[in-house]
């Protein structure tokens, strides 16, 4: 694997082998000495043009646990604020010896551009590009679901598991990557959200619900994935008020009680408590939000391992 730009780059076997790798990497995170010598001498650059807490820290920790050197770059306080372009910044960092560039950028397609335009020779991992994709998030969500549904998750897929994605589907790169990856693994994916922020193609696909109550009753999800309401990406008002959103699509204690006994709740974070999810749901024992964070490190270790090891040019 040279780059990870989209969840669509992965086939079923690759995905399962990354999830299995991450499952073994997880064991390292429970050890007293959380360090492996695997990527000694490799350099990972975190190139973050957009604010991020968990993704950046998670990539940084993952690289450090595999003994790679990490440089974290954030747009604030860099030459970017002097107007340097993505191309120049990336080329500068590559000249300093980066083997992998982990890119987060507000422009959709930026990771693809960086990887395929011949600007840099290093590998590129997409850590979120605009409203397009966020493949490592989808992988860690799949890992969390697989872990909750199977006693021994190794080698398993997600066949027949019903996942309901709720919220701002149109602006969500998390939803887009998850739709590709979860379906690849055999899950049945339903969506639910205000019609104004639900892509039309997905409505026609079936398993689409306009109200959360209706979705919970008819779809009977095993997994409810709440998305963050991304005020910063909405150019106009897609729903009248926050109160209305929370009334129709917020996961509150009443809706929590409607879930089937083994259903779990996921949220990519950061949570807007009181808007899309209330405290009763966020802190309930169904919530796997912290498992997601923990699995995020393992998944990113597995992805870095897959990209940075193996013969140059060919890999299994």
């Amino acid at each position, binding site marked *: 694997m040279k780059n990870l730009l989209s969840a669509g780059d992965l086939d079923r076997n690759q995905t399962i082998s990354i999830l299995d790798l991450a499952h*073994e990497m997880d064991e390292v995170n429970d050890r007293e000495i959380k360090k492996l010598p695997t990527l000694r001498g490799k350099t990972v650059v975190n190139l973050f043009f957009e604010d991020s807490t968990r993704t950046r820290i998670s990539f940084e920790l993952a690289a450090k646990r595999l003994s790679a050197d990490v440089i974290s770059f954030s747009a604030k306080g860099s030459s970017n604020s002097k107007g340097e372009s993505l191309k120049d910044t990336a080329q500068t960092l590559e000249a300093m010896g980066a083997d992998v560039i982990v890119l987060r950028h507000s422009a959709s397609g930026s990771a693809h551009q960086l990887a395929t335009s011949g600007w840099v020779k290093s590998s590129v991992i997409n850590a979120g590009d605009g409203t397009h994709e966020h493949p490592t998030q989808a992988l860690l969500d799949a890992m969390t679901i697989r872990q909750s549904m199977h006693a021994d998750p190794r080698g398993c897929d997600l066949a027949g598991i019903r996942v309901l994605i709720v919220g701002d589907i149109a602006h969500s790169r998390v939803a887009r990557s998850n739709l590709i990856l979860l379906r690849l693994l055999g899950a049945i994916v339903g969506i639910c959200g205000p019609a104004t922020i639900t892509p039309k193609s997905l409505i026609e696909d079936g398993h689409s619900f306009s109200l959360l109550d209706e979705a919970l009753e008819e779809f009977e999800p095993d997994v409810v994935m709440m998305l963050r309401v991304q005020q910063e990406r909405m150019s106009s008002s897609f729903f009248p008020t926050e109160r209305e959103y929370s009334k129709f699509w917020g996961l509150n204690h009443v809706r929590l009680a409607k879930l089937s006994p083994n259903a779990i709740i996921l949220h990519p974070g950061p949570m807007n408590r009181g808007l899309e999810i209330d405290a009763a749901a966020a802190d309930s024992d169904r919530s796997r939000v912290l498992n997601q964070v923990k699995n995020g490190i393992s998944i990113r270790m597995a992805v870095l391992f897959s990209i940075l090891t193996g013969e140059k040019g060919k890999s299994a």
Partner: protein
Amino acid sequence: MDYSEQYLAQRAQSSKSAPSSANLYATSFNSRPERRRRRWTLTKRTVLSADDIDRAITRISHEIIESNKGAGNLVLLGIPTRGVYIAERISKIIFQHSSISVPTGRLDVTLYRDDLSAQPTRAIGETVIPSVGIAAKTVVIVDDVLYSGRTVRAALDALNDHGRPSAVRLAVLVDRGHRELPVRADFVGKNLPTASSERISVSLEEVDGVDEVVIED
């Protein structure tokens, strides 16, 4: 050890693409003419039978008890895939003779290898350290074939990250020579001097359905 796995993979592949021996000959002739005579005279010798393997593992078990002055304070760690089963057999034999059940685990060393960028990306196996831990124990690393010594080097590094054993020993079923590192086994089932062009393949009942060690040239 990965050597025999590599061989098995190759055998599976060649039987898929070239079912008859005539085809096998043709393919190898076309791609690697210098190997022609060798391929034609492919020899397969069984060097250890099921009974030989049984005796060797039994002897190793007794030697471990002898050098350790009993079966106390021991931990056996097998290196996947076949080392794990050899370690389990040793543990069983030690139990029969001393009624002490020796904690047995598995140690995957993939992440500690030094050839990760020279080979296709490898899958990682499971590592299970027995709940007693390895600190202040005598750890016996168990593998099927000792060859370059690089797997053992990786295993020593991996152990380091799990604790500090009071001593580390090495038991192998077959020592085929050609060391690239200063590594020596403490308990050896069989010394098999080989040419590096030969392949040694260890089959165990638990994985392959049969117990045997075969040399192929």
